[in-house]
């Protein structure tokens, strides 16, 4: 086979995988939901593209060049982070399997790299980049050649780095220890990033911030957005050449790293292989949770272990409390560092509480997604689905309450947060949380979809569940907003508390109904659900 026919074959496979992912028997609703979500996302993405073009035009035309840096960083983050975060939405090809075919390494490398361009987020990033380029060229037509060359180099760096990041993550997340280290790394990075942000971006950075700025800014100039920015700032040929050479050099380094990873994969390396040590078997008894039925405890334990053991889920759950801590501490930090920042507890607290509900929502709407063939274990075991669903909800509820408790305590020690505000937010969270879990139970049995968060290769997310989640969240937000509007109009501070408490009671009734209904539905359709999960 020639190189061209290999590429054509790969594009065909990618298209077939995508098309087959839409052909799920008896799931017309899911397909319609996917189309609606795709149209909505496409509209948002294109609108952002137009905004980027206008932003780039304004940046070059009106001398606000710093705006270009921001736009290019958005593209970078989208290209590098979104494919990892949204991997579940993108059906993929297993390149360890591709290596089994009679294909030379050079072609294998090229095919692997080119595959990165077919990723939906890469296509989105390229579209945005094109919009930025168009905006810049529109403002300064004489730069058109320079802009094209610079942005092509920019895209090349991003493509190569994306492939390295993806491969490295797959390697790291393939073992439990790797996942734990990754989780720790991300957490530390989030904390460090927050503090660095305050130090560097603050209007009055203070002595430490100034010192850090002196170190960081020259480094930023070497990043792809920094290199493009330098050219936009002075428009000199030397700066242009420096930018192109700098980005090509970075792409070259990434290409070499990718070659190192891929060569090992090509030779048949299995990531999870390792030396197994022989030790005596020690089995510690499972959890005890007083007050819960005997068969419910292992379900809760299993759910908690699954969620905490899944790096992306654990990070999401932990983020709320971490953000709470940072927001509460950062203003103190700001005061200490004399950067002139202060945080209004009364405004941040409800927002974070809402975020805590959103975080559990992602799992409530597809709560069987991690189980794949393990789902059959629920059917084989002498328990009814009501207990299984309750067990899953209990873990999510505990995470929600733990986050809520933590941020409540943290913000309570700061001035500006009244008891009425706390009670109102808690009743609002109860309403939103119970509604989310109730609706989640229904969508989890109506339209489950298997997701393997362990590796970076997975099947579909549930389009129906995504649509259900969006609809429920808009309904919750709409009702909360209406109550707040009424309270403002009638000038009553206590009105939201009574309304939210009433809504929470109604949500409790809905939740109890959903558990019973979902359990009956799952028992009657367990074979259909199982086929959707694997």
């Amino acid at each position, binding site marked *: 086979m020639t190189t061209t026919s290999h590429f054509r074959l790969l594009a065909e496979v990618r298209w077939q995988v995508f098309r087959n992912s839409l052909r799920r028997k008896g799931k017309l609703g899911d397909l319609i939901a996917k189309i609606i979500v795709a149209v909505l996302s496409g509209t948002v993405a294109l609108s952002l593209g137009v905004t980027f073009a206008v932003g780039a035009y304004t940046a070059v035309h009106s001398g606000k060049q710093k705006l270009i840096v921001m736009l290019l960083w958005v593209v970078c983050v989208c290209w590098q982070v979104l494919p990892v975060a949204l991997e579940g939405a993108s059906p993929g090809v297993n390149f360890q399997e591709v290596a089994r075919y009679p294909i030379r390494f050079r072609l294998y490398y090229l095919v692997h790299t080119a595959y990165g361009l077919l990723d939906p987020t890469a296509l989105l990033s390229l579209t945005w980049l094109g919009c930025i380029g168009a905006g810049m060229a529109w403002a300064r037509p004489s730069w058109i050649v320079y802009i094209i060359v610079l942005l092509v180099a920019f895209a090349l760096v991003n493509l190569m780095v994306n492939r390295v990041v993806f491969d490295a993550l797959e390697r790291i997340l393939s073992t439990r220890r790797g996942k734990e280290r990754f989780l720790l790394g991300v957490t530390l990075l989030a904390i460090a990033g927050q503090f660095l942000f305050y130090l560097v971006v603050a209007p009055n950075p203070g002595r430490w911030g100034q010192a850090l700025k002196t170190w960081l800014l020259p480094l930023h100039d070497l990043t792809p957005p920094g290199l493009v920015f330098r050219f936009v700032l002075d428009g000199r040929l030397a700066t242009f050449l420096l930018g192109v050479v700098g980005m090509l050099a970075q792409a070259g380094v990434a290409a070499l790293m990718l070659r190192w990873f891929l060569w090992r994969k090509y030779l048949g390396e299995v990531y999870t292989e390792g030396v197994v*040590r022989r030790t005596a078997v*020690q*089995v510690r008894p499972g959890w005890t949770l007083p007050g819960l039925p005997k068969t419910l405890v292992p379900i809760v334990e299993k759910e908690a272990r699954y969620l905490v053991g899944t790096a992306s889920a654990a990070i999401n759950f932990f983020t709320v409390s971490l953000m709470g801590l940072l927001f509460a501490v950062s203003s103190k930090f700001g005061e200490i560092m004399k950067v002139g920042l202060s945080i209004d507890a009364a405004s941040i607290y409800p927002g974070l509480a809402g975020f805590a509900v959103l975080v559990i929502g992602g799992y409530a709407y597809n709560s069987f997604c991690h189980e794949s063939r393990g789902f059959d274990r629920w059917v084989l075991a002498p328990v009814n689905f009501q207990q299984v669903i309750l067990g899953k909800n209990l873990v999510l509820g505990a995470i929600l309450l733990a986050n809520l408790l933590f941020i409540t305590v943290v913000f309570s020690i700061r001035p500006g947060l009244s008891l009425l505000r706390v009670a109102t937010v808690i009743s609002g969270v109860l309403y939103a949380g119970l509604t989310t879990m109730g609706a989640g139970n229904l969508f989890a049995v109506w339209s489950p979809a298997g997701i393997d968060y*362990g590796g970076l290769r997975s099947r579909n997310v549930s389009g129906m569940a995504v649509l259900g989640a969006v609809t429920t969240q808009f309904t919750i937000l709409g009702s909360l907003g209406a109550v707040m509007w009424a309270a403002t109009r009638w000038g009553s501070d206590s009105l939201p508390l009574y309304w939210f408490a009433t809504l929470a009671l109604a949500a409790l009734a809905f939740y109890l109904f959903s558990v019973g209904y979902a359990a009956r539905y799952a028992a009657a359709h367990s074979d259909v659900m199982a086929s959707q999960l694997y």
Partner: protein
Amino acid sequence: MDVVIETRGLRRTFGEVTAVDGLDLQVGRSQFFGFLGPNGAGKSTTIRMLTGLLRPTAGSIQVLGLDLEHHSVEVKRRIGVVPEGLALFERLTGTQLLNFVGRMYGLERETAAQRAAELLEFMELGSSADQLVADYSHGMKKKIALAAAIIHRPEILFLDEPFEGVDAIAAGLLKSMLQRFIARGGTIFLTSHVLEVVERLCSHIGIIQYGRLVACASIDDLRAGVAVPGSPALTLEQIFLRVVGGARAHTGELSWL
């Protein structure tokens, strides 16, 4: 015969395809029952219906004298299953999985932990006890699935291809364990494509073809039924081919091979 598994007119259709068509089957206590059939004959569909994983389109199932549809929880408490897909929660470690399954079947915490440790040692999974099941090889997954099926000391074991992918040493270990299970009054319902294994282990055989039971008897009775007087005793493979129609083994050729 003390019947522990009984089906009457069991039928399952998938759209226009009938996978199991009016199956009447009886399995007695302490029988090592081998359920055979060509690919697509309806073996896995039958075992999935017998264990509650799949609802029959028609017919009834009695397990341990209880109607499966109305007493599913009680039946499930008394049986152990190694299904086709193994049904493992792969993001738990071997230890956590056995602990979890044991307690789901109502064992006390300490009992579940003790049995889990013994099973891990017995299945030679001790060194991998704290590894995620996802990281196990196929054979190791089979062993942990079997351990999960017996941890609560069931009365009947349903095993769908239990030896597939298991090495010879481990297979020998498992076979002796299963024979001990039978000797202590347990019943095993097993499907396998490895006829030598079935012949060596099973006391009774059922053969299904096109969703219908075409033979069901003890191995000796089956041999007597298809034997030609004066000729040497037939192997199970020969019996199987005669029952399902040896003519299926056509002699066509691939022109390009």
